[in-house]
């Protein structure tokens, strides 16, 4: 038993060491975001003696954070809503319509999942330009629907097959039309997988960088990630302000993570196993 005890301590020590490495950069950024440039150059490890909130107020004034947050919310909201709704509609119908045609359409959607974004980015930019949505946050949200809907179809199709048909048939007998049945009966039953899809897409769209970089041209339309990218270039070694803006950007998702972590972690395991 003594050996067991020892290996348990050893196990704990390694985990704590790895955990410390995991959190160290975030911790460093947070504590130094409250210091002045001098304090940072003096000692990065020391906790701030006086809290320099000016870093934050200046970062706030430099980029219109409220606007940037709203832009990020618009893009992510539209993207997730479309991906979840349209993906589950298509996935449900494909799962409930047996036959060759459904199989072909399913494979047709799936075949895109291996295409690297870089292969379509140039022509996608041109397409957005042609239909007049380049530079619009709403348009960017719509593009995410096209890019993300396949994965959503994939996950719902698998899930629908585990739901018994009786419920839909009962609703049909009660006189509900197909759309009503789908919204009132099917969607609630699909909610576990819809939450998974929503979370996976939230992490992707909120944090995405390259597509917004190509699509959004006006600073007022920038997502929060893009705004910080601009700031990072402009401030050029003015670390207190850069760090403050990094913290501001990261807070929304970390907060979401603290409250939703069970769903997020389960969702990722779920999404991967199905994939």
């Amino acid at each position, binding site marked *: 038993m003594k050996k067991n005890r020892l290996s348990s301590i050893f196990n704990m020590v390694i985990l704590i060491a790895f955990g410390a490495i995991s959190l160290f950069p975030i911790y460093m950024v947070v504590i130094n975001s409250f210091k002045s440039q001098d304090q940072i150059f003096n000692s990065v490890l020391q906790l701030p003696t006086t809290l320099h909130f000016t870093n934050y107020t200046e970062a706030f004034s430099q980029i219109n954070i409220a606007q940037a947050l709203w832009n990020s919310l618009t893009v992510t909201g539209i993207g997730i809503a479309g991906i979840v709704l349209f993906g589950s509609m*298509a996935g449900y*119908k494909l799962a409930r319509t047996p036959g060759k045609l459904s199989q072909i359409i399913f494979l047709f959607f799936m075949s895109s999942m291996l295409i690297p974004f870089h292969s379509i980015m140039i022509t996608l930019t041109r397409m957005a330009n042609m239909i007049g949505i380049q530079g619009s946050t709403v348009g960017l949200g719509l593009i995410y629907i096209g890019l993300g809907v396949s994965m959503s179809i994939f996950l719902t199709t698998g899930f629908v097959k585990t739901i018994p048909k009786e419920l839909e048939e009962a609703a049909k007998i009660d006189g509900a039309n197909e759309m009503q049945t789908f919204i009132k009966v099917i969607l609630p039953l699909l909610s576990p997988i819809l939450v998974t899809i929503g979370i996976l897409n939230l*992490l992707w769209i909120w*944090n995405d960088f390259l597509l917004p970089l190509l699509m959004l041209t006006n600073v007022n339309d920038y997502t929060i990630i893009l705004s910080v990218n601009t700031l990072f270039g402009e401030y050029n070694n003015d670390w207190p302000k850069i760090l403050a803006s990094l913290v501001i950007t990261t807070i929304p998702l970390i907060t979401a993570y603290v409250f939703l972590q069970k769903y997020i972690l389960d969702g990722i395991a779920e999404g991967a196993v199905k994939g």
Partner: protein
Amino acid sequence: MDTELATVKTKSNTFRFNKAKKKKCLSFLMFLTPAFLFYALFMLIPLIGAVYYSFTNWNAASQVTRFVGLSNYIEAFTNDPYFKESMLLTIKYTSIVVIVQNVLALLIALLIEYRNRTRNLFRTVFFMPNMVSLIISAFMWSFIFTIVLPQLSEYGLSLLDQGWLGNPDVAFYSIIIVAIWRGTGYMMIIYIAALQGVPVHLKEAAIIDGASSFQNFIHVTIPMIMHAITICVFLTLNEAFKVFDVVYGLTGGGPGRSTQVVALNIFEEAFSGNFRYGYANAKSMILFVIILIITIVQVYVMRGKEVES
């Protein structure tokens, strides 16, 4: 039964049957059209366009776009040393990241499996970096590499005094460090879920048969979680080949072109250097085909090693 009924119905009332079929067709369209529309506009047409334009000289400078056959592809393979270098660098990067990230993720997952009370805490901590956007991670680490580590080296840790981002030989590994810091937690979650699915009676049986814990791991655990290994290697392989954000944020491909990965090479060709869209498309097609072949081989080979529980 159903089909018999249907045929009886058809015979008695063809009109009604057609109407039902039409209705079914309509509802099929109604449910699939929205998804298809967005997919076609923003995925399918751009893809077809990309294939087409990869055979043209489409660029920002000239008004006329001409069909140039295979010349873009020939140029990429024979007359573009930067592209070739970036491809080799990406392959080297991918090999290291895929191996280190998966070994580390599996190791941490195994260690966490042994904890009872602290399991959730550790899971939460190790996944935390994943909440930080890739480009923001790169900015955070720029601070660590340029300010924090050089300062820590003064406490006698001279190993930390490196040109983390300025030295071409070191910068490549700095990028790998950030990628692994950011990505390992995600894979760990998948491995933990898989480890929980390994039946306890199998491990117990192996122990009764006198297997050591290492033997147990190799002969029981690994085969039972092979499906998760397949998925995680697939995901990391895909991600690593397309690496862009971390490099863009950390080194911008520099110093010089020493850390220019292939995605960055394509990006520069199209949007910041030459604006040769057609040529950049051809290079992106080459990247696509390489990823496709490698992942298909990987999944095919590893699927063969999976066992049913």
